[in-house]
């Protein structure tokens, strides 16, 4: 349903206007913190704010209750201006237990709002979190606005008479916490009440209990003397249009649906479940009415191979994974490069190496996707920069894949894949079509079909099985250009290696120039790629407001680079490359352009704090 922003609610207490707020819900991984965060996000988006989110959860589905390892968090920023990150200094924090407080408190700003479920700050929970004394009772939290709220008791009271078990009653606590935060920021309860109605349609008692808990939390804020004022964040001045809140993974999927339709193709996904990429498989699996076939393969290898089969058969082919799975797909991707078939491979990056940090973000697979295949095996690589950008990235990738008859790698990461922001909904008819043609049938006495004949971009024809007279064989052995027959001739091999590389390089003619935000030349260029876009853009904007001579350029296509990148790089005294890895883009830039770069590297499973980039830039600027 569409509304023209749902209004702020009325309060009898003082209302303080603020420009931006960053909230974090944290609790046990079974406490429903992701749900609480998602509801606040949607409600804030519906209220007209710009929003950005950062879900942060452990790899274990249910680590032992109350332990530090089991803490799950969801952070959201909402603002009356354009924002590009979910913030790093938290204004208000809800801690459902001592472990959550212990692991998250460092991010709460001095003087910030701390709402703690005091019922959980008892002997066992305190011991599990490693507290010797109760932090709510000593003076350790004096520099925060501490609100001790007996959430468990209040929630149990609220649901009395509904014939719930104690466990069921306690599972409503997240709605109580939501209600309280909704009051604190003047948020309407309506979207969440609607959500409860639809989610628990078949469980009326649970629906009623959650509604009561939500209302009780809200009323608690309004009536208790503890809270003297609430906050209000005005609507943001977003570009006019219709919006909805979307995660990067959802938008990757929708971009693929759109790309299939734009090219008049049906989509085939071969995939194997892996964090944090599985949500793309889930989303596409429930969209069969758009002609989408999804195949949950027996392993990562079968996933990529089935997709290549679908590509040969004439479908828009896709496989999705994360770093460990991409490693397994290496030989298959090499075959797709060799056979010159169009397909998309999505790598939603996570912390590595090996199993690494499955639920945390990192940008450390760049060199893997550039070079992680045997032989000279180039493939176009594009990286999405934000949750919204995942949509366009899918379309851009397929356009290049189909035009050049090549697999294309999309890099996303856990941060933008699980993070969400308002997405301005496009009209399908405004999107540029992706024309694809296939050679037609031939008679026996026609010239023989040449499966590896090339057009002006060096792309070969996409001949579909079932077409009379175009019978041909493809494979992993080197083939002679033109007829595609197996060929071990030394000069032909050299020629084919060079041709495949030139073809990929030709993508630069199709991707458009790189844009720079800020002065065209000067002291410092911040160069970024992928999910660090938001932090870098915010940092550079802040520096520019301070009057610093600094510009920002963000690369989406990494192979090939935009044609004007060389010129841009040479226009600045210094180039700073912040990356959530140990310097992988930097290595590529240094190699290709023979310039010095300054690296800012971080591998903590977390995105950059804006301040980290600002400090480094100031350092360089002197």
């Amino acid at each position, binding site marked *: *349903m*569409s*509304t*023209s*922003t*749902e209004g702020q609610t009325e309060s009898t207490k003082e209302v303080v206007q603020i420009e931006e707020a960053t909230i974090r819900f944290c609790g046990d991984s079974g406490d429903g913190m992701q749900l609480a965060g998602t509801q606040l996000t949607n409600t804030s*988006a519906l209220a*007209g704010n710009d929003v950005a989110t950062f879900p942060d959860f452990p790899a274990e589905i249910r680590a032992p209750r109350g332990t530090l390892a089991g803490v799950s968090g969801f952070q959201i920023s909402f603002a009356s201006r354009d924002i590009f990150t979910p913030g790093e200094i938290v204004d208000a924090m809800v801690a459902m237990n001592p472990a959550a407080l212990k692991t998250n408190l460092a991010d709460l700003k001095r003087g910030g709002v701390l709402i703690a479920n005091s019922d959980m700050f008892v002997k066992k929970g305190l011991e599990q979190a490693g507290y010797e004394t109760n932090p709510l009772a000593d003076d350790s939290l004096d520099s925060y606005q501490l609100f001790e709220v007996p959430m468990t008791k209040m929630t149990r009271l609220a649901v009395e008479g509904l014939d719930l078990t104690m466990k069921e009653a306690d599972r409503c606590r997240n709605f109580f916490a939501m209600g309280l935060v909704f009051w604190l920021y003047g948020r309407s309860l309506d979207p969440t009440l609607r959500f409860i109605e639809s989610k628990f349609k078949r469980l009326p008692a649970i629906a009623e209990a959650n509604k009561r808990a939500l209302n009780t939390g809200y009323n608690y804020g309004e009536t208790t003397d503890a809270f003297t004022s609430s906050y209000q964040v005005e*609507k943001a001045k*977003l570009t*006019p249009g*219709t*919006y*909805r809140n979307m995660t990067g993974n959802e938008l990757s999927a*929708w971009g693929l*649906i759109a790309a299939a339709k734009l090219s008049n193709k049906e989509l*085939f996904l071969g995939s194997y479940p892996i964090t944090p990429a599985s949500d793309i498989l889930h989303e596409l699996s429930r*969209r*069969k*009415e*758009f*002609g989408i*076939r999804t*195949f949950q*393969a*027996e392993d990562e*290898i*079968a996933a990529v*191979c*089935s*997709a*290549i*089969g*679908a*590509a*040969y*058969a*004439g*479908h828009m*082919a896709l496989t999705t994974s994360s770093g460990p799975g991409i490693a397994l797909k290496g030989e*298959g991707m090499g*075959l797709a490069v060799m056979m010159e078939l169009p397909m998309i491979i999505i790598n939603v990056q996570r912390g590595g190496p090996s199993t690494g940090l499955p639920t945390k973000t990192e940008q450390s697979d760049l060199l893997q996707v550039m070079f992680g295949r045997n032989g000279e095996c180039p493939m176009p690589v594009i990286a999405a920069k934000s949750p919204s950008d995942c949509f366009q990235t899918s379309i851009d990738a397929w356009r290049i894949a189909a035009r050049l008859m090549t697999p294309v790698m999309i890099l996303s990461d856990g941060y933008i894949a699980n993070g969400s922001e308002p997405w301005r*909904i*496009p*009209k*399908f008819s405004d999107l540029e079509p992706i024309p694809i043609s296939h050679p037609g049938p031939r008679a026996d006495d026609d010239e023989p079909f040449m499966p590896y004949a090339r057009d002006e971009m060096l792309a070969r024809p996409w001949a579909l*099985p*079932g*077409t*009379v007279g*175009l*019978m*041909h*064989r*493809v*494979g*992993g*052995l080197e083939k002679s250009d033109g007829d595609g*027959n*197996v060929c071990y001739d030394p000069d032909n091999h050299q020629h084919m290696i060079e041709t495949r590389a030139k073809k990929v390089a030709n993508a630069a003619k199709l991707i458009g120039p790189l844009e720079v935000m800020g002065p065209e030349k000067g002291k410092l260029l911040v160069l970024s790629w992928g999910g660090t876009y938001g932090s870098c853009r915010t940092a550079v904007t802040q520096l520019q407001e301070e009057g610093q001579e600094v510009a920002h350029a963000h690369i989406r296509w990494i192979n090939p680079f935009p044609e004007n990148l060389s010129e841009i790089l040479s226009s600045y005294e210094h180039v700073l490359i912040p990356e959530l890895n140990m310097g992988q883009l930097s290595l590529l830039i240094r190699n290709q352009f023979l310039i010095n770069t300054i690296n800012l590297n971080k591998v903590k499973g977390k995105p950059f704090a804006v301040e980290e980039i600002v400090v480094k830039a100031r350092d360089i600027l002197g």
Partner: protein
Amino acid sequence: MASAELPVLKASDFASDQDVRWCPGCGDYAILAQMKKVMATMGMEREKTVFVSGIGCSSRFPYYMNTYGMHSIHGRAPAFATGIKSTRPDLTVFVITGDGDALSIGGNHFMHAIRRNVDINIILFNNRIYGLTKGQYSPTSEIGKVTKSTPMGSIDNPVNPISLAIGCEAAFVARSVDVHIKHLGETLKRAAQHKGVSFVEIYQNCNVFNDGAFSYATDKAIKSDNVIEIEHGKPLIFGKNRDKGIRLNGMQPEVVELGKGITEDDLLFHDEQAPEPTLAYLLSRMRHPEFPEPIGILRAVDAPKYDQQLNDQLALAKEQKPNADIDELFNSGDTWTVE
């Protein structure tokens, strides 16, 4: 206007223009010849057929067929074939593989393609050796096999391809022999006709690295005692004079001589359509030299096909949501408008 009548293709019309490069005397030649003949006999269309292979000597097969084809990577052919058949049910898809390709590096895909019952035809050329890499033992090599990589003899317990396929509940399972050309042609024909996955193991002689591995089953003088041609509804009889049979003793098969009070009615009767794979499995356990090895169709039952069900689900989804509109999808859920 072209004539509505399709031109009749000869076996040679299914040959590509590429020179066949197997070693002279290789069993693969006989299989290639039978395949072309079967396709011509069955009136199959070249443009509607795709041969997919992995890596190994046998996997060069697609290059020699004038059809669509893919020479893919080691062990993965069933996965490519699954992608092709799932998106294009109108195509006939063959997987050409070997004992190393299907059962060693590709064991996982072999198992899953079979249990899903994808409508593809998996033809396994079993020569019990690695030929392309010049003579290492394979997962079907016998214990004690001396090869370049097992100078003191293999200590790997070999896998029985038919037992493995039946363990995955293969709906169609058959075995034939490269030089037994009439039987081979008939078997390939039945496999191609079967809807759903069909698995055919072919005993194939590698005359360079493992010559005579199946001489017990091919040597005219002794083969009648060492193989048993099984037929649906018929008793299991073998021997040069057709005087021996297989009888069930409890759960165990035993070799008996006909006459002396034992008649055909006492023998085990083959039922390729038995709903449970138990009988087919029992037959697959009959190994040389204790037993004659069964050739023919061990199992042929109808079962739900993966590719068909996948496409049925798509059709159902389209029926439930006719005129699925992408703009409607984009604008679904909670949206808001900024003026």
